[in-house]
């Protein structure tokens, strides 16, 4: 498979945070391994969902991909360019190609800017730095057309963020992310803060935009149902690692990793008859701390199918069939 097919290629990504102790003389008391060796790639036009529970490292992964968090190790290639190797100027220019949508539309918009200015800001910054040539009238017009495309009436252009509802604010955030014509959208829990009826509006909007603008998505969410609806491919994370990665349909019908199985069985189904007939895998205990270094599989203490060898060395992500990788000794691996 030629490499240039991938829009985004992430290899061996690690983000470790130091734990500092002491008030005056700080010393390092260990590491929080938030992201601990993550590999994945996304083809153009695909939507990859990163799913996992709080603290599993999915947002840190997104921030490291977006170069908003320095990686401890590993590379992030966007169309073959290693983003970490770019100069500050080069990175700024490259940001045109990847943009973010955040979870909380309340805190990710400047309360003192009007909607139109929020959306125009990326264009203004790029114009000022000579990275695009657009005069202010053209920028204003573009911002209005983006608002329209994201389902916001042009009459809202002069309003401030607090005058919008949560769903509308998220539309502003999306319009802003689209302003520079990015290829990749990194969306970190874009619908988690929204009510059910608004959530589906935003998901459908994102789906339409994906088609119209030929977008590729790295989509982060804790809600498996949302991920399965939106994404073509899903990666399940646990304690900083990907434990299983495959396409959405396979993930729904044939999950392999015991953690994926438990996660899927824990998601409540909006169907009382199915719920009554369901056998849930209830995992014991909580997610352990990412500051402990594990010799074996990090999931083994909660795993209903743990074996002796699981405590000896960690399993690595291996393909069980075309397009389905799992990190578990039940499916072979050394």
């Amino acid at each position, binding site marked *: 498979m030629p490499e240039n097919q991938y829009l985004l290629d992430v290899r061996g990504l690690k983000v470790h945070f130091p734990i500092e102790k002491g008030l005056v003389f700080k010393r390092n008391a260990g590491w929080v391994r938030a992201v601990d060796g993550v590999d994945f790639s996304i083809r153009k036009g695909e939507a990859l969902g990163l799913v996992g*529970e*709080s603290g599993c490292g999915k947002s840190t992964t997104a921030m490291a991909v977006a170069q908003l968090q320095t990686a401890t190790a590993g590379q992030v290639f966007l169309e073959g360019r290693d983003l970490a190797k770019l100069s500050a100027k080069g990175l700024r220019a490259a940001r045109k190609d990847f943009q973010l949508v955040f979870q909380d539309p309340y805190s990710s918009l400047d309360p003192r800017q009007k909607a139109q200015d929020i959306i125009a800001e990326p264009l203004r910054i790029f114009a000022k730095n000579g990275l695009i040539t657009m005069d202010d009238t053209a920028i204003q017009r573009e911002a209005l057309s983006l608002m329209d495309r994201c389902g916001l009436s042009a009459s809202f252009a002069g309003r401030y963020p607090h005058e919008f*509802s949560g*769903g*509308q604010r998220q539309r502003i955030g999306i319009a802003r992310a689209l302003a520079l014509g990015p290829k990749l959208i990194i969306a970190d829990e874009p619908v988690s803060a929204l*009510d*059910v*009826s*608004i*959530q*589906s*509006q935003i*998901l*459908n909007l994102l*789906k339409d935009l994906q088609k119209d603008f030929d977008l590729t998505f790295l989509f982060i969410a*804790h*809600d*498996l*149902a*949302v991920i*399965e*609806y*939106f994404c073509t491919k899903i990666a399940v994370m646990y304690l900083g690692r990907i434990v299983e990665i495959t396409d*959405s*349909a396979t993930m*729904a*019908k044939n999950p392999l990793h015991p953690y994926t199985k*438990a*996660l*899927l*069985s*824990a*998601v*409540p*189904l*909006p*169907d*009382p*008859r*199915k*719920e009554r007939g*369901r056998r*849930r895998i*209830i*995992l014991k205990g*909580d*997610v352990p701390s990412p500051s402990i270094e594990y010799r074996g599989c990090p999931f083994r203490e909660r795993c209903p199918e743990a074996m002796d060898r699981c405590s000896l060395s960690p399993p690595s992500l291996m393909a069980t069939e075309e397009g389905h990788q799992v990190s578990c000794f039940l499916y072979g691996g050394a």
Partner: protein
Amino acid sequence: MSEESILRVEGLVTQFSTDRGLVKAVDGISFNLRRGETLGIVGESGSGKSVTNLSILRLVQSPPGNIAAGQVIFQGRDLLQASEEEVRLLRGKNISMIFQDPLTSLNPVLKVSMQIAEAIQLHHGQGRKAARAKAVEMMKLIGIPDAERRADDYPHQFSGGMRQRIMIAMALSCNPDILIADEPTTALDVTIQAQILELIKNLSAKDKTAVILITHDLGVVAGMCDTVCVMYAGRIVERASVDELFYDPKHPYTRGLLDSIPSVDLSGPDRLYSIPGAPPNLIDMPDACPFAPRCSKVMEVCARSMPPETLLDAETSRSVRCWLHTKENRNA
């Protein structure tokens, strides 16, 4: 369906006076709770689900809040007319509550065993030692490992799921008749949510505790509830058994909600339905159906007046508040 009713809410109105006008957060709510039943109250943010339940225990802060009308009948008494002292004796003993965020609902500077024991000491007049022993027993019951040792830990030493277990231990320590759970698992991860829901289910089945479960998650409703009330803009728009609600929803809002949630088993449609617009502002609401501007089946009458609550089945008390289902329209 013959189980006795233990709580009856009748025409409850709770309003808040704000600078911008009067907000009727709860606007004429009635429902019945039977012994051992799990009643779900679903709705989006601001629909009045939490205020309904705070009103039952008279926990609405006043001012700005004010319970303007209605009755809450428990054990033959109207709690809204009872003295503050009488209600205080019921709280935690007969009716107890668990909240969404266990960290802010627990006292950070008290050992958890003392917090669990407080209700036992207060309501059963037990001594410190006996109450602590009962607290440890409760902690074992709700599945806190190493309960004897952990009883002397403080809330911050527990994980989110464990804190919610402690809240449940507190709430159930006096064997209440009614447990009100306000979004008990919203702040938790899905595998922990499954643990907590399982726990509430088992414990309530054991003691025939009635549960009022407030949630926005229709999946949780499907798995937990016997009966469901759907709230919109301060009113119950549909009341039905859980099966009726999911397989034969009557109100266009219920239908819309069900069609807009993705399902993890990919049984849903390729494209989700979405209800246009956003929930209304509750300040100075006009006398019209509040859902009319977003409704796919809106008629002329909907903008003119509020539809009455129509009883569809007297025995199951299934009802809907929509002009499509009023007697005149059904017969027409």
